[in-house]
């Protein structure tokens, strides 16, 4: 019983790692623009699909991964330039619906380009499962967790120790005043979409060897990332990390103990609970925006 539970928790840690990356994208975009980008999960799908399709076609992994991340980043930038920026000044709901439209459109486009077949990637490194206290992790899990560590460390360093990062924090804290000091808000908004999409795409590349990927995988990642971000606090990057792992573990334990169908259901139930009890999330500050 405890052995099985431990194994569910380990499985949840792997899922949690990718949820945290998607959640980081949600937090970045929300912080800088105030927009909840429901298309965030599609960048994971684009990253995973591109890398899988290119390596299946014979390209070396490193090249395929680089192209995959670049393509996801480009998709993020285009989302901002073509869909978000022309609608600026729209209400929060208009912008939310726009990202919903982008989400549907990107999934349709993926269906056209790649069809309905599932794709997969070989694990990045060979070797046996890693055994921790009797529970097993696939070696690929280290790549996923390592990516988390790198991305979150990079974000921390960027925001705390670079001039541009400080400028972004100023823009988040008070956009009009930051703007009068010459901080380019629109460039930052564009940048937040590009970086969030690149992080999602990178997550898609490293996670794909474990569950595989198909054209509609983005919806699950997007919803889970969204839930993680709100769980942890939509204005907090550490919250994204905490929310992602919490959700991943809860979903896996629920699926193991109840039935596989309940994993998503329980995650969302917890979300509802958090929204009622602590709408700002576990690590978020009291809500500034509705």
């Amino acid at each position, binding site marked *: 019983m405890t052995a099985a539970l431990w194994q569910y928790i380990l499985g949840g840690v792997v899922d949690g790692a990718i949820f945290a990356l998607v959640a980081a994208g949600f937090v970045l975009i929300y912080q800088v623009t105030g927009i909840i980008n429901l298309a965030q999960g599609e960048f994971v799908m684009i990253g995973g699909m591109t890398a899988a399709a290119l390596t299946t076609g014979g390209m070396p992994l490193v090249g395929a991964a680089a192209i995959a991340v670049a393509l996801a980043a480009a998709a993020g930038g285009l989302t901002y330039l*073509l*869909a978000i920026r022309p609608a600026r000044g729209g209400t929060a709901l208009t912008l939310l619906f726009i990202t919903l439209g982008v989400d549907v459109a990107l999934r*349709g486009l993926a269906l056209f380009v790649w069809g309905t077949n599932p794709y997969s990637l070989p694990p990045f490194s060979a070797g046996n499962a890693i055994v921790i206290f009797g529970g097993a992790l696939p070696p690929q899990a280290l790549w996923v967790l390592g990516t988390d560590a790198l991305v979150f460390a990079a974000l921390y360093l960027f925001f705390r120790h670079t001039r541009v990062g400080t400028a972004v924090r100023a823009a988040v804290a008070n956009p009009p005043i930051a703007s009068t000091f010459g901080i380019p808000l629109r460039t930052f908004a564009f940048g937040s979409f590009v970086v969030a999409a690149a992080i999602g795409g990178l997550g898609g590349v490293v996670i794909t060897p474990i569950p595989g990927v198909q054209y509609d995988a983005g919806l699950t990642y997007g919803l889970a990332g969204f839930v993680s971000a709100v769980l942890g606090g939509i204005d907090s990057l550490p919250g994204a990390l905490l929310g992602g792992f919490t959700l991943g573990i809860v979903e896996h334990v629920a699926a193991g103990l109840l039935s596989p169908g309940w994993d998503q*259901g329980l995650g969302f139930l917890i979300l509802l609970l958090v929204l009622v009890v602590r709408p700002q999330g576990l690590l978020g500050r009291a809500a500034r925006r509705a």
Partner: protein
Amino acid sequence: MRRLSTAYAPVAAVIVAVVAVLVWFLPSYYTGLLTLIGIYALVTIGLNVFMGYAGQVSLGQAAFVGIGAYTSAVLSVKLHLTPWLGALAGAAAAALVAFALSFIVLRLRENLLALATLALGIVINVVFNEWDFIGGSSGFKGIPGFALGAYVFDQRAYAILAWVLVGVGIWFAGNVVQSTYGRALIAISSGELGAQALGVNSEGLRRQAFVLSAVYAGIAGAVYASSFTYIDPTSFGFLLSVNFVLMAVIGGLRSLWGAVIGAAIVVALGQILQTVIPLVLPGARGDFQSFFLGVILVAMLILMPRGLTSRFASDAQA
């Protein structure tokens, strides 16, 4: 703010009459589509009261359609009740669930309300999937049809029934939104604090609008279940909820006719894309249409955020 028309009843009657005549000439496939448009339009009318007039948001409306459909199906298949009662019970069940949930989700606003309703829709769908009593993932087959005396409804009758419901639904919603009640809803959407300061009970009104939208969805679900005789959890997923938002936005959120126009356009567009795309792009599958639906949603929101009917509305205002 004045809306499209003060005379909902006569126009609704004309539309029902047109449908009643059309069904005798259309091939049965198109009659089925007409029924589907009617059912979706009914849901979207309810959604427009909640989203368009009251300025709220629901990304989980398909769940209420599902509750209506499942309630009616359970009552008619297991207890052999007539679907007429089933539809009433479906509406009541959807209303009850909406009422109970409103105490949780309606504490939230905007983005978080969107997320909460989205979560609700998914949780309710998981319940459909996991609850064996209501068929689990395999759903319900052989749901009995509506009947009047010895006459069991055929496709034509369903199309007429759906559109009679649309007519009644528009008439009722039209009265709602033009009453003091409706003006209070609009006041909430233009600023909740201000509305409260003017003595509007925004908490209660938002709840009533939410429950009303669930009633529309529940009735639509019951008609859906009986006319298609088969339901399963995938019929009421997140994507259907997205489609309702699309219909509401395309038609115009603050317009009841917009709901009908939006439903008609989304269903028709889906059909057209399904036939045209493979001709133009031989490699494309039918589902590729969702790309265009997404692009249309984005384009509409950028170019005409108030929907197609906003053009007529501003004319009427002048």
